[in-house]
């Protein structure tokens, strides 16, 4: 400020210079601290990545390093060829995630539109119960779910598990409702005047403008159900029906019984972990802005 006054004194300029310098220094300190955080965040992933390309002699060195000297795909070959369950589990996870994503999108969209745009007795109460239910702890829920799914003959099957999860609609309904409310009302009104019924308005007018909300819902569901452990582990008995997020824990057991000379338990396990992590990680890195959007439009608006 002093520099802008009628007579720029040298003292003022010096002050300005040091303050700029200070700010720069501050930024660099910030960056150094955050690089530390980055290292902690990435180290486990990078370490698994490097271990998965290592062979026995490098893995069991006295001082292992992150850099691989003789990279090899042997671990991946082993895990994909000798453990046929792994591709199977990948398929299971895909089926589970796909069913849940589609089911939730359909149900949540249909329900969110009236909640956003129509008026009927009990609308607000209904929406409030939807939202509040997420904050009630599921105390004996796992046991009750076991009983329920067993009764419905949905237990120990991937589609059954998917049906169970499709019922957990709070976040999708919330996000879709927000999305619908943000649309310009006039377009829907115009469609109505042209004779469209409610379902047509939703499918032809509102949905094409709501892709953002749908992408946010789909991505969050995918990531959650790819990694969900406890419920899937409890409800499914046959290891061949495990989704990868559960089955990955079995790699250790298999790893100790392998026969290949070139691989080590360690490397094969790492390769397995990486295969399990890779899909979600790649999707996240490619579409990261949608995840942040999901946070700011979902849970924070509750």
């Amino acid at each position, binding site marked *: 400020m002093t520099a802008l006054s009628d007579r720029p004194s040298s003292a003022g300029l010096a002050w300005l210079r040091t303050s700029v310098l200070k700010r720069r220094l501050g930024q660099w300190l910030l960056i150094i601290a*955050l690089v530390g*955080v980055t290292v902690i965040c990435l180290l486990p992933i990078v*370490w698994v990545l490097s271990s998965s390309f290592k062979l026995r002699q490098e893995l069991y060195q006295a001082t292992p390093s992150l850099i691989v000297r003789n990279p090899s795909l042997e671990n991946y070959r082993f895990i994909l060829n000798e453990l046929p369950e792994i591709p199977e589990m990948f398929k299971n996870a895909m089926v589970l995630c796909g069913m849940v994503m589609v089911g939730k999108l359909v149900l949540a969209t249909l329900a969110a539109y009236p909640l956003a745009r129509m008026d009927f007795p009990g609308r607000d109460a209904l929406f409030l119960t939807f939202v509040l239910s997420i904050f009630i702890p599921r105390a004996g829920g796992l046991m009750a779910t*076991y009983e329920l799914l067993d009764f419905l003959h949905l237990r120990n099957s991937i589609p059954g598990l998917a049906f169970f999860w499709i019922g957990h609609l709070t976040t999708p309904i919330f996000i879709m409702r927000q999305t619908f409310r943000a649309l310009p009302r006039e377009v829907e009104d115009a469609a109505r005047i*042209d004779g469209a019924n409610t379902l047509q308005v939703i499918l032809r007018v509102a949905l094409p403008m709501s892709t953002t909300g749908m992408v946010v819902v789909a991505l969050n569901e995918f990531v959650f159900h790819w*990694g969900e452990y406890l419920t899937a582990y409890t409800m499914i008995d046959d290891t061949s029906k495990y989704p990868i997020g559960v089955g990955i824990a079995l790699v250790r057991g298999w790893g100790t019984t392998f026969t290949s000379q070139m691989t080590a338990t360690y490397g094969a396990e790492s390769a397995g*972990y990486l295969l399990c992590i890779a899909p979600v990680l790649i999707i996240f890195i490619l579409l990261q802005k949608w995840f942040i959007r999901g946070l700011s439009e979902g849970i924070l608006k509750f």
Partner: protein
Amino acid sequence: MGSYYLPSVSQNRCWEKGWNVEALRRAKAERALVGQRGRVGRARINWVAYMLVAPALLAWMLFNIYPMVRGVTMAFQDYRFLYPETANLFGSFNAIDNFVEMFHDRMFGASLIVSLKYTAMYLPAIVILPVIVASLIAQLTMGRLASFFRVVVYMPAVVPIAAAMLVWRKLYDPNFGYLNVIIGSLLGHKVDILWLGSKLALSSIAIASLWKGFGYNTLLFLIGIYGINRELYDAGAVDGCTGLKSWWYITLPLLKPIFALILVLNAGIMGVTEQAMIMTSGGPGDATLTTGLYLWRVAFQFGDMRMGYAAAVGLSLGLVSAILSGIIFRVMRTERA
């Protein structure tokens, strides 16, 4: 933009006759759909709306609400899944026997202490660490760099929990794990820390969970910080409130709703199950047998699958976290007023 979307059929003719197109359109639309703009009198029963909500409502009631309610009634039953005569909806009620038994159950008591220890380690860290990291990221002036750190910090959150815990178990491995190597090279001599030994196992699980959990909370805080009005800081600066002071007196108080949200979302921490299950399966000994893991074993692993007793344990845990949430809400509300 409204008039661009007018139905083209009637527009011209209305214009000729000198009608107010806008008003006409609105009236028609209003008749077709009484909307959120405000209710005129009582809302009409709108069957279409009910039909659209019905499938979601049914699925939600069946798979979300029913198990919640059923879990509570199960807690008052001597429900053993493998004994058909006890495993039914209406029989085998035993009043509060399950809760009485909990008081005599040594393993339950021990697991409760483990869970409390875990909560005491994890809960403060999962709140304090993210708010600091978020504040650091928010201070960056280079937008690109900030978005890079946002991505990196959130990355562990998308990693499947099983994979995350297994990777950390490898890192903790005393012989070939990388953690001891790093610490050894930092200290300059070889170290042999037994990360998963009986002393450290619980904190090791907490560290691994922290690694996975803190990115999510960091982003929540970051969104909160980005939402704070910059003018508040300018106003503060005039009064000599800058740097750390402005963080303490402006940023933190304004993040209170997010603190509350994070605490409530983590209120179930007493029931922590998967982490201990995957990484140590409760061991060594019972050093990491949390209450969540104990109740899971009672219900699904031990002998006759005593789901009734497990549900009672779960209900008690649930009550604790519900009370915690209630207190948090109460405290946050009174302080905001």
